């Protein structure tokens, strides 16, 4: 089953909005990742993006930059991340995606990486530093292995550019809620609303909104406007401060 079908089935289950969460693999450890993922799945998370650490995470803010760096400093390898993914996708029946930067895939070998991702039952791939201008061949290869490449819209994208982007990839569209990097607050104002309307008019794919989504209030605001709310930095901070056990109640509280 492809990612877009997973999303369709989940959306029919009486949910007003789906939740996608983000973890950095190997940070603070795979053991904690394991527990956090269980907490997330048991409390209703619909999709999880697992970030394979990279030493130059250009689109990320300080929190996720530090998580990437700490994981690498702790000798977390790409092979470790793939092995962990194999275990997790068997244990939990929700769609998992990989998020990483292009160099990780390039060094591993594009086709080899996609083949391995398919074997691991990974449904999609989020790569913030590859555009259609550079990625056409890679996107086509991903289709062959039924891995949905998630295209990214930004507030600076014109309607014309959005239509072009949406002619590539699959699954859903990741709408970056604001300018800047991950982990800072987003103000949901008229400008945001008109951006989201522009996104909606440009594609029939489900829309995920991420960057600065951290509370029930944010999720409520997005309900009815977007299909998926993405919680990233917030749960990494929560695990750092209160441990993995705090994740379950937090996730549950987002849609209560």
């Amino acid at each position, binding site marked *: 089953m492809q990612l877009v079908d997973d999303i369709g089935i989940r959306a029919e289950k009486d949910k007003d909005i789906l939740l996608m969460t983000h973890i950095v693999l190997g940070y603070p450890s795979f053991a904690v990742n394991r527990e956090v993922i269980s907490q997330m799945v048991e409390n209703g998370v619909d999709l999880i993006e697992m970030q394979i650490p990279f030493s130059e995470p250009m689109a990320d803010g300080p929190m996720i930059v530090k998580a990437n760096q700490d994981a690498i400093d702790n000798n977390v390898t790409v092979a470790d991340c793939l092995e962990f993914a194999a275990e997790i996708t068997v244990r939990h029946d929700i769609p998992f995606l990989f998020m990483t930067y292009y160099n990780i895939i390039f060094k591993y070998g594009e086709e080899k990486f996609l083949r391995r991702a398919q074997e691991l039952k990974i449904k999609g791939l989020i790569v913030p530093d590859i555009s259609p201008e550079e990625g056409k061949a890679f996107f086509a290869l991903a289709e062959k292995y039924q891995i949905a490449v998630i295209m990214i819209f930004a507030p*600076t994208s014109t309607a014309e550019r959005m239509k072009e982007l949406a002619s590539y990839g699959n699954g859903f569209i990741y709408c970056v809620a604001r300018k800047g990097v991950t982990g800072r607050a987003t103000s949901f104002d008229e400008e945001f609303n008109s951006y989201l309307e522009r996104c909606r008019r440009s594609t029939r794919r489900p829309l995920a909104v991420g960057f600065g989504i951290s509370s029930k209030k944010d999720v409520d605001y997005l309900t009815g406007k977007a299909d998926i709310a993405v919680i990233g930095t917030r749960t990494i901070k929560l695990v750092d401060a209160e441990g993995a056990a705090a994740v379950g109640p937090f996730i549950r509280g987002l849609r209560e």
Partner: protein
Amino acid sequence: MKNNNGYYGQWGGAFIPEVLYETFQELKQAYTSVRNDESFWQEYVELMATYSCRPTPLTHAENLSRHFNGARIFIKREDLNHTGAHKANNVMGQGLLVKKMGKKRVIAETGAGQHGVATATMAAKFGFECTIYMGEEDVMRQRPNVFWMEKLGAKVVSVTSGSKTLKDAINEAFRDWVTRMDDTHYVLGTVCGPHPFPEMVAWFQSIIGLEARQQILERFGADPARVYACVGGGSNAMGIFQGFLERENVELVGVEAGGKGLASGQHAARLATNDASPGVAQGYKTMFLQNDDGQMLDTHSVAAGLDYVGVSPILTDLWEKGRVRFAGATDDEVMAALDLTMKKEGIIPALESAHAFVQAFKEAGELNRDQAVIINMSGRGDKDIFTIAHAFNDPSWQQFIIEKGAEYATR
């Protein structure tokens, strides 16, 4: 430079987050329009002649030539450019472009601090707000430049992520840019990064090579046998090489940071060793010093400006095609070459530039008096006073610092 959508052979490209797509469209358009406008280049040359010190001289190093008893050694004096390095060429050019684009704020990364000082200078002259990103390690080793940037009105942000050097400063500058692209231009300091930066920076730096070619013909009457330039990102090398690229009888030599030795693993030599491999980071594809997973490695050099994991995609292409030869100079060799140049010629090259001197000195004896070589002296060495004094283990300087420290401590 000939390229295909920002590719030089298989190297280059533009690997940027979507949020910057429109910003790059705008930049490419602005750059293309000035590139095709002859009056812009005239305005640029005029600015460099009246505000900076262009054309910079080509000095015949007679004592060094005699000392090595081989080729006649000429030195292209980018140290005499305003702010003390070739960096001003690129920065003033981009400054004129920023004025045309109507932006009010500039940001830049800096390693040795020369690009930061040049950008802060340009911002002061043109009335732009300015923020400079600099790795924490480089802030420590290039403190005088931090002082000048701040005095020139720039805000200097010490970058504490990653290896705390140039690559991390570049990442941080991009993080700023994705937040404030509307009023801000990123003045990238070298011939790296996403298209159109390599091409655009190479264009502004080509002024070095244009002058050098004309000067060597006037002074020596023929092409040089070899041209030497140090290579960090590669902007001074691309600058001077462009004057001679079409002259196939001129051998072009890029000198990378050999650090503690090319076999030590503690260096920043991408093309002079087999330690680098193809990769995509910081928005472009080139040869990077990285591990098998694609994680960038820590690099080492006594010269902050050469301490970088990647290298210009244009130079990687020229290396692959065999047009530019690469060598490495170790920290120790650099100190010896610096010492000799000061004593023989009364010239103080920057630690970065001294790498080019090392290789030229190694090879000068292979050539004869009827042949000439040019060393591109990308910058002056007085900025490195703390590092150089430390490396020479200079006792009177150490005493001075101790006394100064005591004086401030009692305040």
